[in-house]
């Protein structure tokens, strides 16, 4: 088995699952009915993508782990998502800023993955592209509206940007797994992806009248290698409860 590719697929799947799970905590609790619908929609899209990544990862591994085994039977240190997606929902500015930072990266990444040398990955990316395009349009639009809305909304969304910024560097901080995927033509290189990300974030922040934090600021890392924040354990304890409490059951 190509261990690097397996790890890379887990990262893709874990990012999507953890963010989907976070958003789904808001079911029925959004700030407006239209937001409730959109949140559920994004959560669903990400969950669908999770299942595709995990299924491929499980097949590649060939050890009989299906999507549910991968989702429900790994502890926090075995999860490979970025720190960004496991951060708590906070207020709606926090929720949407987390989403916007992620969506921007996700959009350019998925776009690049449609040209992956791995046909299965390219296919999943192709399938996901419309969804992530919509996600990005939506979260960017809301960041603009909150930033250029009232003084209160401006302050909230600026605070969200400042607090979450330190979790954005990890997406472009490539390690051996990422680099192996770049070398194999499976995944895009970090530098151009980061340039695209910064350019789009800068453009949206300008329109939103927000101050973009420095790209050279100190960045947290560790999630991709399984060293998470304290939040992930709680998220997993809740998410995995039934599978853990009733081992071997079919649902």
């Amino acid at each position, binding site marked *: 088995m190509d261990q690097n590719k397996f790890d890379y697929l887990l990262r893709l799947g874990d990012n999507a*699952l953890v963010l989907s*799970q976070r958003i*789904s*905590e808001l*079911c*029925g*609790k*959004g*700030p*407006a*009915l*239209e*937001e*409730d*619908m959109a949140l*559920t*929609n994004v*959560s*669903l899209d990400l*969950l*669908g993508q*999770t*299942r595709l990544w*995990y299924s491929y990862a499980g097949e590649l591994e060939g050890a009989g782990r299906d*999507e*549910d085994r991968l*989702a*429900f039977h790994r502890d926090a240190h075995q999860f490979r998502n970025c720190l960004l997606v496991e951060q708590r929902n906070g*207020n*709606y*500015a926090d929720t949407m800023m987390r989403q916007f930072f992620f969506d921007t990266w996700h959009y350019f990444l998925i776009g690049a993955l449609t040209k992956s040398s791995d046909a299965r990955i390219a296919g999943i990316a192709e399938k996901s592209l419309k969804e992530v395009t919509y996600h990005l349009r939506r979260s960017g639009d809301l960041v*603009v*509206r*909150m930033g*250029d*809305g*009232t003084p*209160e*909304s401006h302050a*909230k969304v600026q605070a969200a940007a400042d607090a979450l910024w330190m979790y954005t560097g990890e997406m472009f901080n490539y390690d051996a797994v990422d680099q192996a995927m770049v070398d194999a033509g499976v995944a895009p290189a970090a530098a151009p992806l980061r340039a695209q990300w910064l350019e789009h974030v800068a453009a949206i922040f300008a329109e939103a009248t927000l101050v973009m934090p420095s790209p050279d600021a100190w960045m947290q890392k560790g999630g991709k290698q399984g060293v998470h924040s304290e939040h992930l354990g709680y998220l997993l304890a*809740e*998410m995995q*409860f*039934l*599978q853990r409490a*009733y081992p*071997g*059951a*079919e*649902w």
Partner: protein
Amino acid sequence: MSAEERAFQERIDAGVKIEAKDWMPDAYRKTLIRQISQHAHSEIVGQLPEGNWVTRAPTLKRKSILLAKIQDEAGHGLYLYSAAETLGVSRDELLAALHAGKAKYSSIFNYPTLSWADMGAIGWLVDGSAIINQIPLCRCSYGPYSRAMIRVCKEESFHARQGYDIMLALSRGTPEQKAMAQDALNRWWWPSLMMFGPSDAASVNSAQSAQWRIKLFSNDELRQRMVDQTVPQAEYLGLTIPDPDLKFNAETGHYEFGEIDWDEFHAVLKGNGPCNRERLATRVKAYEDGQWFRDALTAYADKHAPAKAAA
């Protein structure tokens, strides 16, 4: 009866739909606003008991299905608020009435969801009952309401089937899972029967609603339909309906069932259900916490609408 009222009733009797711009009696308008908004509120509040298990769904597939269901419910809320708005109230007014505790929503959502099996039981029993209530309303006299109901019913029937499928998996599962399914049936059975409202003998205002064709069958008729439909399904699942008085009457072709605990019904209606306070508090908090966000959207639109129109 005035000439207008007579003409109105004649159109209804002839099966012609009433539309928003048509003249209608005040009481018709008010009754419809109450009924439609109550239904809309039920969809919105109804997201909460299910949202309670989304984060703990046992498989990714089940999680997807549940999420999609909750999304549908928000959508139903939207259609229904829109249908109510055609009668001259705003969504914000309706929500204000809900949040102030003046408007009702279906009492069934004041029961807690205590296990994964409740996601099955709600789909099977609660959505099942809702469909029985709502299918006739697809033919009701008010056009916007009947059209909203057609869309709603189509999706609800999926939900009921998905709920039954959860129950099926559980009752074919481990002993713990089967117990979970039985426990859910025990807790949801009677509240589901109560969803149809008081017995006909105790029901007020039904005659007028029937005449206006916004209530097409009596509570007891619909309740009987639900029992008749559900008992064989429970048997197929191998689960026991928690009613020792339940028996099939071969002569009538219907199931006879025990006395409903109307004290409990009225207690929950009065606000004493296990979750009344919490459901409302959750919705109020979501709304209040979201005020700054909605204000921001409005402020942005006000700032930018003229500029964009001019461009």
